[in-house]
C-alpha cells in the first residue's frame, strides 16, 4: 500500500472516503475474513464479525494514531471482535467458551462451507485444547502464514514469546493427534 498516512487522510476526507474505503476492503477483506473464520469457525458468524470489524474501523479511524500499522490495528480489532462474539454467543446459549468451541467443531461436519476431511476436523479438535493465546498464535502462524513480527504487533507480544508459544502449541497438537 502507498503512504499509509496519505491513505488514512483519504479515508477521513468525505470527498475521497468512498473510494479509499473500497481500496481498504479490497486489500484487507479476505485476510481479515480468514483470520476471523479461523477463530469463530462458522461462515455466518465470520460474516457478522467481519462486518462489525469494518464498521468499527470506519468509526474509529479518526482516533487511529498511526503508532502501529493500519494492517495490525485492523487485525487487533478483528481479533477482539471475534473473541467477544464467541464469548457472548456461548454465554447466551449457556455454554463455556471451550464447550461452545467443541460444539462448533462438531458442526463442521455438516457445514456446507467446510471442505475439510476427518483429519482436518481432528486438527481443529487438537487446536481447541490449547489455551486461547496459543490457539491464536498457531492459527495466525500456521494457517495465515503471518510473520512473527506481524503477529507480535497484532498481539502485543514479543517475538521470542511467540516462538515459544508456537513451539508449545505444535507439540501439544502433535501429542493430541498421536494419542487420539
Amino acid at each position, binding site marked *: 500500500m502507498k503512504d499509509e498516512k496519505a491513505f488514512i487522510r483519504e479515508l477521513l476526507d468525505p470527498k475521497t472516503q468512498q473510494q479509499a474505503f473500497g481500496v481498504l*476492503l479490497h486489500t484487507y477483506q479476505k485476510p481479515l475474513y480468514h483470520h476471523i473464520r479461523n477463530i469463530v469457525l462458522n461462515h455466518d458468524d465470520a460474516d457478522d464479525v467481519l462486518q462489525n470489524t*469494518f464498521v468499527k474501523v470506519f468509526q474509529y479511524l479518526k482516533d487511529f494514531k498511526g503508532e502501529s500499522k493500519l494492517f495490525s490495528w485492523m487485525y487487533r480489532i478483528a481479533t477482539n471482535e471475534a473473541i467477544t462474539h464467541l464469548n457472548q454467543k456461548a454465554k447466551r446459549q449457556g455454554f463455556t467458551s471451550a464447550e461452545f468451541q467443541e460444539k462448533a467443531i462438531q458442526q463442521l461436519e455438516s457445514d456446507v462451507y467446510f471442505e*475439510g476431511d476427518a483429519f482436518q476436523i481432528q486438527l481443529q479438535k487438537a487446536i481447541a485444547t490449547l489455551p486461547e493465546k496459543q490457539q491464536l498464535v498457531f492459527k495466525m502462524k*500456521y494457517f495465515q502464514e503471518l510473520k512473527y513480527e506481524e503477529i507480535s504487533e497484532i498481539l502485543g507480544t514479543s517475538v521470542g514469546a511467540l516462538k515459544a508459544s508456537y513451539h508449545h502449541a505444535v507439540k501439544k*497438537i502433535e501429542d493430541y493427534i498421536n494419542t487420539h
Partner: protein
Amino acid sequence: MKPFQIDEQNKIKSGFTVPEGFFDANAQNLLNLIDDTPVPISLWDRYKKPLMSIAAILVIGLGIGFYWKIQVQNDEEAHWAAVESYVAEHTDLMDEAYIDYLNTTALDSLHQNTTEAKILEEVLIENGDLEQYITE
C-alpha cells in the same frame, strides 16, 4: 506407524470456504453500510466548545479579579509612598511652621511675661513695704 509431526506433513489447509461471489457482494454491502453509519463523536468533541467557553470565562474572570486586587494594593502603596515622599520633600515647610509657631505663641508668651514683670515692678514701687517684706 510413524508419529505425526506437523512440519513433516504437507501443509494442512483449514478447509474453510465461502459462498461464491461472497467477497464482491460483501464489499458492496459494507460500502453501503458505512454510508449510513454515523461516526461517533466523543464526549470531549461534543462538549469541547461550551467547555472551552466556560474555561475562558473563568480564566478572564479570575484574571480581572487578580488584576483588581493587585491594582488596589498598588494604589494603597502609592498613596503612602506619596505621603512619605511629600513629607520627605517638605521638611522645610515643617521647620517654617515650627518657627511660625514659636513666633506667634512663644513671643506672645514672652511679651506677656514682660508685661507681668512691669505690673509687678509698679506694684512694688507703689508699695515700698512689700519689697522689704519679700527680702526679709
